[in-house]
């Protein structure tokens, strides 16, 4: 993937916010790609977890917003436990999700879940799904 970086495209406010929300030091990551290699969802992602970090610290908010990756992440923490730099990627994914959810843009709205599924899904799925996907 090639991205163009210019001062005008970099959103430093965005970088500041995701640092605050995730509590993580983005500079820790040295782009080894272990996280992507260990991510069970990566085959359904358009950007790999490693790429998300790189774009995030470059402040390329739009690229991230256009990607589905953070919504495909299942917070399984496979990346977290394998990172040689102690970077908790799951927290970065959450921070990016929250930036959207807190603007009252829901990824899943309860009333949009088909009625049949609402009756079949165990409570644990509804609770966790709505916590991660609705603001």
């Amino acid at each position: 993937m090639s991205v163009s970086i210019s001062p005008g495209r970099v959103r430093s406010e965005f970088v500041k916010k995701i640092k605050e929300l995730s509590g993580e030091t983005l500079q820790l990551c040295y782009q080894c790609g272990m996280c992507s290699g260990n991510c069970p969802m990566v085959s359904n992602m358009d950007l790999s977890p490693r790429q998300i970090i790189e774009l995030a610290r470059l402040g390329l908010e739009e690229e991230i917003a256009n990607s589905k990756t953070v919504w495909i992440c299942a917070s399984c923490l496979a990346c977290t436990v394998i990172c040689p730099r102690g970077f908790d990627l799951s927290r970065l994914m959450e921070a990016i999700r929250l930036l959207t959810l807190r603007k009252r843009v829901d990824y899943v709205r309860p009333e949009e879940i088909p009625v049949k599924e609402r009756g079949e899904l165990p409570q644990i799925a509804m609770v966790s799904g709505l916590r991660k996907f609705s603001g």
Partner: protein
Amino acid sequence: MSAKKKDKSSAETMVKKEREVSKAKLIPVHIMGKRYDVPEGLTLMKAMEYAGYKFIRGCGCRGGTCGACGTVYRKPGDYRLQVALACQKTIEPDMHITQIPFFPANRAHYEFADLTSAPEEVFKLYPELFRCVACNACTKACPQGIEVMDAVSALKQGNITVAAQIGFECIQCGLCTSRCFGELVQYHMFQLARRIYGARITPRAEHLIEMTKAIDEGRFDNTLEKLRHMSEEELKELYRKREEEPVTAGEDWRPKDKTYL
């Protein structure tokens, strides 16, 4: 008492009451941000009326049962938001009050006849149930002292019976809903729970089933026919002479005339 006389006497008591009120000490209250001095001892509702408000909504029974007059208030120096029914609570000096007669809440549409006693009925109709974060703001907001959060928890756990029991005294004032972090509509869910509990979970009353069957089979046809042909005077006479059940009567009380049993 003739109608005229009644009017006169009630007018008298009104005048008398007004004099009492005018003698009463005035205390300051803040209604929707504006200060009014109102006679102490009034309810929030009467204080608002004294200040000039006319209720076309937000007032119903004036007896604490209809839930129309939910009100929030704060007292100086206390961060906590307090709640009351305006018709029940007496004003206190320096209260800041605002009535919330209605709070927007979607009620699910359902055909009750199609519903079973399964917990999933609630999940299907109110999926936002699962957005509860257990903040407990609802319980703190309930003027009926209901453990609202516990009832929500019960619904989440699929326990309609417990939810219906905890939420039994809900008067649908909507204050819990106004405070909900998860944007749930507790009182509509409780109503659904009570309906399911009443119709699908509590055991049917056997004697009622027997009695309706007996009625269908014509047990009272003759009596009703007789009543139908009576004159108004005869009916009144019958009513006056009826045997009343004493207030203190127990379960085993029976009338002397057993014709209709």
